[in-house]
């Protein structure tokens, strides 16, 4: 995934689909002839069409912008979007001491990055980087509404439209450009602060750091933004975003809580079943069936996360590039293997151990892919190996609890639970320490959320597994074994809930007032 997009394309790899005139024409027939692009230069304010090794980009002149937000309104009018979806936004940064105060504005649509993380993550290939213009385009028809791109973009550019069930984003008014018309934002700007330029890709790759970064903007390193930001010559050293103290919990994504916790439970259970079968040759047929059912519920629940569940199968498409596709693929294979394994256990056929091993391997790979996909640039709190560890720890803990139930509380399984508990506890501790100690706004913001509005949840997340542990000495009694498992699942459930709601997305600075509230 690390190789730069254009290099890959030039190397002839097929990992990235680079839109050609043909594919573009088929994507949105209304756009019609790309050949019209040749006329782009005819309007004096538009530059010549990009040549080989070049692409279009936005030029934003912060010294001219007065924060009037005409671009925001013009963009919404152009695209017919409702008011809660803004493909172009204006944010504020501020610094200095009165009367030498400076407040500046950032106006941002899509940055049409050289290495668009929205594109690389997309499981259905809904994104393409236009071969002629470098514009990162999105096809609503191809999109299944998984919203993975909204996590992957560190600028918060793609936005999910619940009315449509798909994501949408700024395409630099592609349809206008090919007709020689200026994009709506640039055309509306009374201060001439937004322009379209042609950039030489190779040069930009060398020098983007000085011109693509700005206070109030996430690092351009994530995806190599192409937007050229003209900064004022002198900015106070403390210039920064004005929305820092404005934190609020993110969406909980309940289907994904169900999906991740239950897949991990199922994988943990199958692992226990497999191990017990290998060592004690007990088939645990009913347990396998229940674990299989849990996996099915998890996979079914995951489709409810999609804006277009009917097209869920498309998510398999980009397995060579997207961790989301890989997750779906691996869990699908896991489900097949688990079905076969359960069937073999019921029938009592030979080879069950091998099938069990396969199930467990696929399951652990699935959990790993599942965790890996959360390592998204736009979600700094997730973007750490600890996420992998966290998901494994859940799998281990819930698996150990299952083993405890299946062995009627055998001592070895109690130690397994104790070990897994320790593993999970250390992981949680490390994660909290990472957040608490960080100076990165998004990470420390997560810590602030966890310790203020989410503090009760955090307390539960820690107390529940402890209760489970306290019940462990009573594991000889069935109700205590079940209770341990239930409490442990509850703890992990709460942990996953916090995982989703406590993340502070990386984004461009916003205005001071949030939309919610009074």
């Amino acid at each position, binding site marked *: 995934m690390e190789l730069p997009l254009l290099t890959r394309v030039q190397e002839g790899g097929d990992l990235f689909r680079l839109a050609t005139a043909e594919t573009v024409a088929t994507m949105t027939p*209304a756009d019609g002839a790309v050949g019209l692009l040749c006329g782009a230069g005819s309007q004096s304010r538009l530059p010549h069409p990009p040549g080989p090794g070049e692409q279009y980009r936005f030029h934003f002149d912060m010294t*001219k912008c*007065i*924060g*009037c*937000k005409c671009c925001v*309104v*013009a963009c919404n*009018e*152009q*695209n*017919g979007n*409702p*008011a*809660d979806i*803004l493909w172009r936004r204006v944010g504020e940064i*501020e610094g*200095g001491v*009165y*009367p030498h*105060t*400076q*407040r*500046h504005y950032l106006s941002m649509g899509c940055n049409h990055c050289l290495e668009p993380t929205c594109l690389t993550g997309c499981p259905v290939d809904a994104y393409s980087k236009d071969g002629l213009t470098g514009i990162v385009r999105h096809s*609503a*028809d191809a999109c*299944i*509404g998984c919203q993975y791109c909204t996590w992957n973009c560190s600028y918060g550019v793609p936005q999910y439209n619940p*009315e*449509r*069930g*798909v994501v*949408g984003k700024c395409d630099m008014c592609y*349809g*206008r450009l090919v*007709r020689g*018309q200026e994009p709506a934002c640039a055309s*509306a*700007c*009374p201060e*001439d602060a937004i322009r379209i330029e042609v950039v030489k890709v190779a040069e930009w790759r060398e020098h983007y750091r000085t011109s693509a970064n700005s206070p109030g903007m996430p690092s351009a390193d994530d995806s190599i933004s192409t937007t050229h930001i003209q900064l004022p010559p002198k900015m106070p050293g403390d210039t920064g975003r*004005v929305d820092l*103290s*404005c*934190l609020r919990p993110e969406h909980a994504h309940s289907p994904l809580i169900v999906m991740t916790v239950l897949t991990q439970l199922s994988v943990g259970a199958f692992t226990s079943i497999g191990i017990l079968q290998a060592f004690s040759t007990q088939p645990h047929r009913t347990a396998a069936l229940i674990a299989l059912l849990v996996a099915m519920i998890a996979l079914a629940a995951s489709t409810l996360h*999609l*804006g*277009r*569940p*009917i*097209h869920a199968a498309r998510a398999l498409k980009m397995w060579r590039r997207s961790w989301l596709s890989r997750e779906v693929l691996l869990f699908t294979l896991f489900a097949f293997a688990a079905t076969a394994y359960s069937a073999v256990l019921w029938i009592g056929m030979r080879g069950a151990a091998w099938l069990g091993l396969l199930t467990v391997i696929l399951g652990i790979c699935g959990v790993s892919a599942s965790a890996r996909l959360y390592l998204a640039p736009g979600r700094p709190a997730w973007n750490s190996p600890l996420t992998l560890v966290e998901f494994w720890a859940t799998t281990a803990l819930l698996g150990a609890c299952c083993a405890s139930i299946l062995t009627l509380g055998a001592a070895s399984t109690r130690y397994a639970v104790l070990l897994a508990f320790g593993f999970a506890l250390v992981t949680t501790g490390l994660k909290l320490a990472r957040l608490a100690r960080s100076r990165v706004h998004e990470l420390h913001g997560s810590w*602030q*959320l966890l310790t*203020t509005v989410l503090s009760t949840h955090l307390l539960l997340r820690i107390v529940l597994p402890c209760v489970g542990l306290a019940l462990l000495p009573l594991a000889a009694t069935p109700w205590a074994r079940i209770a341990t498992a239930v409490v442990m699942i509850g703890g992990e459930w709460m942990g996953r809930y916090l995982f989703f709601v406590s993340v502070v997305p990386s984004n461009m600075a916003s*205005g*001071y*007032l949030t*939309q919610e*509230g*009074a």
Partner: protein
Amino acid sequence: MKLADWLARKSGLDIGSSKYSYSDDPVLGFTSSGKCSERWVNSTCGYCSVGCGMQLGVKDGRVVSVRGNPDHPVNLGKLCPKGLAEHYAIEAEGRARYPLLRRNGQLVRINWDEAIRTMVEQLRAVQDKYGPESLGVISTGQLVTEEFYTLGKLVQLGFGTRNYDGNTTLCMSTAVSGYKRSFGSDGPPGAYEDLEHADVILLIGANIAENHPILCTRLEANKAKTLIVADPRVTKTAMMADIYLSLKPRSDLALINAMLRIVIEEERYDANFISSHTTGFDELRASLEPYTLEYAAQITGLEPGMIRRTALLYANANAAFIGWTMGVNHSTKGTETVNAMNNLALITGNIGRQGASPFSITGQCNAMGTREAGFTSGIPGYRKFEDEKDRQQIADLWNLPVERIPTGRGLAYPDIIEGAVAGKIRALWILGTNPLVSFPNIDVLKRALDNLDFLVVQDGFHPTPTTELADLVLPTAIWGEKEGTYTNSERRVSKVNAAVAPPGEARSDFDIFLAVAESLGCREELFPGWSDPGDAFNEWRRVSAGRLCDYSGMTYELMNEIGGIQWPFTSEALSGASLPRRLYSDGIFPTEDGRARLLPTQWAPFPEQPSSEFPLILNTGRTVEHWHTRTKTGAISILQRMAPRAWLEMNPKDAQQLRLQAHDRVEVISARGRVSKVELRITEIVAPGQVFLPFHFAETNANQITQSAFDPISREPNYKQCAVRIEKSSANAAHA
């Protein structure tokens, strides 16, 4: 939604492709299909006084999109965010649709005949009982000029009350008074083009980047300028400045007087211009004696050297421009401050030339129209009540005996309200304004309205805080639904056209005025043969002929063609319709002796100084997304999304002392009342000791705390400074 549709949507088969499709529109280009229009109607924006030319796209009887008219000389196709979303105001949920009469405490729907009959009967009954002047009328700056002209005649001559004023007294009357005193007449002398040609531009109390963003385009075009901004708050405009003067609240008059003194002391004035075109130089010079640099520095908080530098920059400029808005006008010393700025322009000869003007940037889209053609503080055509010749002239034009023309103005807006509190005004007719949010010290206004026998509110929106108190609500057409003209700040008259019909039974104000006149029995006398605004316009052209605001050469056709004409425009000047025009280019002023007056002025501290109980100074103002009391912009979701509620700006030093955190909800308390649960913004935009609150929001109405202090000359309220204290709200909203 049908089950099949719901399933299609939820399953993802239907992604609303047609709603989110794009098409080619001949005017807009490639755009959202929903915005493509069948026809385009040229008009002028109905928000502020910049007066941007617009085109309204109509499809299926709805205005589906707007765009800036690329050929209009004011804005060349650009619009501010309010303008870009203006079409949504037409279909806003809160539009007034039917006449409503209060019966048993409830507003109930009635028909127009009954509404007009009831209105005339009730108002006449009050006038019969308490005298003709017991009727007060408060209008707006947002009707078309034709309506102002008609309304003035109807009120002054039909109803026979002089107690008629506009809400323009809340924003522009100070500029009017200042111009009248200095130059002998109202009328901003310059043109927007001056912003492109001035080499020094001094903006005092004018945050044009927030309030008149399209004017900033002119600043941007002028690369050679030195922009000086004087404002106590580091506004968006201040941040554009080459020199920012962070003066203390209400110290502008001291600053200008010190500048005048330096210019005279160092002999940087235009002696020729002074001797040929002004009177009062010696008195002015004598009056400036106290305003040494040190004295002004002490009052303004600026460095003495900075004041001198500013004065010399201004005086040495080839063409220097002074622009001001509410920072100056909203003050008990406003008129004098305007006179001081005029003094500065006059003694340096910075008037009547390209780039050189003392320029009041107006507020509402047609505040200028009511100043020219209204019948409030003067007789239409900038005629004076006191002037016998003016009265005779207008009587002749109207074929009326001169005795019918009042010999003095009636009560100004704040005095009408005081009159109602005192029981002298017993009935009120309020048009196109929302005083329940916009009038200072709102409790006084509430008392006034409680005292009335009958309240008529005529508005395009219902409910508003004001219509809710009415005995009779008359629903009107708004921008986009009626025809007429607006005059902008640079005296440019532009055409306003109807794109669609008003909702329900709403009618244009013009139609309502004629119906009221009919019912009063004065229609034939005052409005003979009139049926549409064009009739009023034609009479107004005759009435304005030969006056400073001469419209006689203008026609609707010509305006539609070139997008707006600056007055004076006589029938002889037909060829130069699109040329920029300035007043007083010949150095002759409309005073008795043809000379402008240099007027001594005296700085004084603002009326309510901070105290131990109320230690902070409250400043009020606006934000770009909203217009006045948000009757229109509050109903437009995109503007609401960008500016959802009010906030209070406070310097970190004060916040630290008060132990307040960002986003805390706070109470803003003055001697008169409080604003509750405003979100705190801690920022270096405001100086320590000062706080800033936008006034648009009825829910957190700044006028709960502003004071009843008015300019003695213009009667404009001192909205800008009052003493407050800040406390944390008790039930603090949870914020991380």
